[in-house]
């Protein structure tokens, strides 16, 4: 174009250079293409398996199929815990773009109030496995379901899920036996088997529901589904159906349970009835009870507070955790201890002036009858519940001999097979006191221990268990609530663990039974008022447990205080004496004397069990029992 044009432009050389350069470029192209090929070979051949796995993991999602919870029946086949269909609101957070906005919308649609909204939001924040529906609200009503259905398009990730919900037909009377299920909380989530509980929202929290959680829950199934990148299920690839939870049959007889609850008639107390041959717990009542259904759907904070602050402690399971002084109901056991230890014979007569004095002590330990019962032998001592006689026995035995004998009947430990949260109570001894209080044992304490006062602490369940062992003439049976787990009569191990109580002379059982029978039927018996018209022989023993102090943080007004300082009434019994079918422990709190306030309850319960001629009750059931035994032997 300009003057310096072309002098050295050499076309031939340019062509040469271009040819060389393009050849070089072609080589480079081949090299780079080879590089790509090598990379593809690495990805598609060498690492193929790794990426195949990764691609499968992308595409295939495993969804849990929760099993249905096993039902619970009483010993007559009556349903005591069932499942009823409900509708729950769930949310899959991964599919929700704006959680807050979505929750606002849901709250709006359902018209929730303040406290509900708070609980609702709290639940939405709970830790959850990814892509698993989180429970927001259970038990929606039809109106709510309808409103959600209409607004569904505005609520991606929010689903109404049909689910079985636990329901207890007789919550008040059964609450402490069955316990209840509730939503799985975060702590439980951390310890649970993730796979098996992946689709489960509820877990047994207390009682039988907790004890037999594994059997009742069943085995979760799963389905493998193909999903797209947004998590939408496209089709089902594989399905393993869940294995439903096993049904449970209890030893409890609902009719007896109901009666025991009614007998307490609104008072605080507990009744436990055990079938001596089997250890079946026929009734186990702690009154007052509570509505366990409220805990299933999620009890409100206010309702929970009022239950907790109720002075009658409805949430407290008295039957297995309530600890009471054993009172005079210790006397049959103490009599056996004295006989077995050779410190007395059934015929020995002890004179009761109305009090007992230790050899080097001026203090008078009083009989309940101020002027004394005069000449008292073993049988009479039991019948009139003579204190002086048993002060003497206790003194002769010493505390350690007495307590080690009491251990044989299951006091001081938890012996029940499947009762959740049972307390072991207290059996006092020298060593126990030294350990607990760092103090020596005083001789006077042996005397008060001899009439069941002082350090003794027993639960109603322990008392009934000991009574059953007594009725069995020492044959130990382990108390239990489950009769059968599942269809195939998977029986829990009833026989156990504790040796039978052996006496040197078998007739000593009869001596003690005679005394106990006189309690009910004797002219002087402390509970002779219940002996009228008795159609079978009943052995019983009344007791009175002194209330020394009130629990901490309990405030009472004057009238209440008076009432709550009254003695607890105790009564233990078994019947019929020659073929015991039922052993009973009754404790009525702050009712006064045991003979007057607790004995009648035991009689009524025994009557119901032994005399009711309803074909469908225990008699029919006994036949089945015998049949089973025949098969077994």
């Amino acid at each position: 174009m300009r003057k310096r044009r072309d002098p050295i432009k050499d076309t031939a050389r340019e062509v040469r250079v271009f040819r060389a350069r393009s050849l070089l470029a072609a080589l480079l192209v081949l090299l780079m293409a080879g590089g790509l090929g090598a990379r593809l070979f690495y990805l598609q051949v060498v690492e193929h398996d790794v990426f195949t796995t990764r691609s499968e993991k992308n595409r295939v999602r495993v969804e849990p199929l929760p099993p249905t919870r096993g039902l619970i029946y009483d010993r007559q086949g009556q349903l005591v815990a069932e499942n009823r269909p409900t509708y729950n609101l769930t949310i899959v957070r991964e599919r929700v773009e704006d959680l807050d906005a979505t929750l606002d919308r849901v709250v709006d649609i359902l018209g929730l109030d303040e406290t509900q909204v708070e609980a609702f939001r709290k639940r939405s924040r709970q830790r959850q496995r990814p892509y698993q529906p989180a429970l927001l609200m259970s038990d929606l009503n039809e109106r709510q379901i309808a409103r959600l259905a209409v607004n569904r398009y505005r609520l991606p990730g929010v689903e109404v899920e049909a689910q079985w919900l636990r329901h207890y037909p007789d919550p008040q009377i059964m609450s402490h036996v069955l316990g209840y299920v509730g939503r799985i909380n975060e702590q439980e989530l951390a310890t649970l088997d993730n796979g098996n509980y992946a689709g489960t929202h509820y877990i047994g929290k207390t009682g039988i529901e907790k004890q037999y959680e594994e059997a009742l829950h069943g085995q979760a199934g799963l389905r493998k589904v193909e999903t797209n990148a947004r998590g939408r299920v496209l089709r089902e690839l594989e399905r393993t159906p869940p294995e439903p939870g096993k049904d449970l049959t209890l030893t409890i007889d609902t009719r007896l349970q109901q009666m025991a609850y009614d007998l307490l008639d609104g008072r605080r107390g507990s009744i436990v009835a055990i079938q001596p041959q089997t250890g079946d717990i026929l009734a186990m009542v702690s009154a007052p009870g509570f509505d366990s259904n409220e805990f299933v759907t999620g009890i409100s904070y206010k309702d929970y507070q009022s239950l907790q602050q109720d002075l009658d402690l409805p949430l407290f399971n008295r039957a297995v955790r309530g600890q009471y002084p054993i009172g005079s109901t210790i006397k049959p056991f103490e009599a056996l201890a004295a006989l077995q230890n050779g410190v007395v014979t059934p015929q020995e007569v002890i004179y009761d002036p109305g009090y007992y004095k230790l050899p080097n002590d001026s203090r008078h330990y009083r009989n309940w009858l101020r002027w004394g019962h005069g000449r008292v032998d073993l049988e009479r001592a039991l019948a009139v519940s003579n204190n002086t006689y048993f002060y003497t026995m206790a003194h002769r035995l010493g505390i350690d001999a007495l307590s080690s004998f009491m251990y044989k009947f299951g006091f001081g430990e938890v012996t029940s097979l499947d009762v959740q949260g049972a307390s072991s109570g207290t059996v006092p001894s020298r060593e126990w006191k030294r350990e607990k209080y760092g103090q020596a044992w005083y001789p006077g304490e042996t005397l008060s221990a001899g009439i069941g006062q002082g350090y003794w602490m027993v639960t109603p369940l322990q008392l009934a268990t000991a009574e059953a062992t007594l009725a069995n003439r020492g044959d130990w049976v382990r108390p239990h609530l489950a009769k059968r787990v599942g269809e195939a009569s998977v029986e829990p191990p009833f026989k156990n663990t504790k040796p039978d109580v052996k006496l040197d002379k078998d007739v000593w059982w009869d001596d003690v039974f005679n005394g106990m029978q006189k309690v009910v039927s004797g002219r002087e018996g402390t509970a002779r008022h219940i002996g009228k018209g008795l159609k079978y022989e009943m052995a019983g023993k009344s007791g009175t447990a002194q209330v020394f102090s009130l629990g901490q943080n309990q405030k009472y007004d004057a009238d209440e205080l008076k009432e709550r300082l009254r003695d607890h009434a105790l009564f233990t019994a078994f019947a019929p004496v020659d073929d015991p079918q039922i052993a009973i422990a009754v404790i009525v709190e702050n009712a006064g004397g045991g003979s007057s306030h607790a004995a009648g309850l035991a009689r009524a319960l025994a009557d119901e069990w032994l005399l009711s001629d309803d074909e469908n009750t225990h008699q029919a059931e006994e036949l089945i029992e015998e049949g089973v035994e025949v098969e077994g032997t």
Partner: protein
Amino acid sequence: MKGLEWRRFSRASADGMGRKRSLWSRLHLDPWLLLLLLSLMGAGLVVLYSASGMSLAVTLGQASRFGVALLAMFVIAQFSPSTLCRWTPIGYFIGVAMLVAVEVMGDMGMGAQRWLEIPGIIRFQPSELMKLAVPMMVAAYLYKRPLPPSMRDLLICVLIIGVPVMLIMRQPDLGTSLLVACAAVFVIFLAGLSWRVIGLLTVLLASALPLLWFNMHEYQRQRVLTFLNPESDPLGAGWNIIQSKTAIGSGGVFGKGWGLGTQSQLEFLPERHTDFIGAVLGEEWGLIGMLVFLALYVLIVGRGLFLANTAQDTFGRLVGGGIVLTFFIYVFVNIGMVSGILPVVGIPLPLVSFGGTSSVTLLVGFGILMSVHSHRRLLPR
């Protein structure tokens, strides 16, 4: 001059190549290159149909764009290289002007200013034009100069390249700006840039990399960082690379079958019918499918380089060579990206990825190549 040129050419064709050839020559098309391109486009449509989730609309849309692009190729091939050379500066300056216009009043949509739009009539991406205009401008400048180019000529070339590249980079469109720069650099390389200068420039470029890093947009840096360690952000920026590698790797040797790729069909793979279509190919057709496509690309490049070598003026040679090598850079960067050895830059797999503009640009480029090949004068060598 024109008449002479034409006569000589016809005679040469008739002499050396026979009747059949002469028909193609008269059409100014190279049958082998055309065959390779048509094979690639046909196979590309098959892949696209699956990658678009069996969307006939997308596939037919792409096919019709291919039609338009082939027509454009045919038209361009009819112009002689010297005509193209004469129009080059005009095209170049219009392109730069439009880039400036985009910069000033560009469409703000999508966070990137790339489009120039006369609403309702046309939406045009000036940077596409520059993919051809810049290397052609460099070739047009260089071809009359003594080669290898002097330092002064080089500096002017740097200016010719630098202005549009910077403008495109600011849009920001790193991928296209790199392609534009590459095309022009290939032209200078083919012109015989001395190895000393090449070495020097390499060192300079290496030392300029940090500078480039600090001029990058945040999302571009993120892409580079993610490329270096995709697992660091598996659900965010690393997602594309991980899913793409998973798709290709799970394809194995024979692939999962057409339309059966779970990664692509279930939408785990993002941008599956545009930039990441190579992963769909790898998943559904396996290593074999990948190698077939790679072979097609290499053959096209080989044929292209051969055609450039038959050109009879320097302008044609340089432009043809530059265009062909740039075409391969597309392929290399895209497959390198989907297989995880190069960072994610928005470069499509040529003639396979969905997208009209780039197909037109590419085929217009091949049209120039065909023009260069078919408009020959007999000159003494």
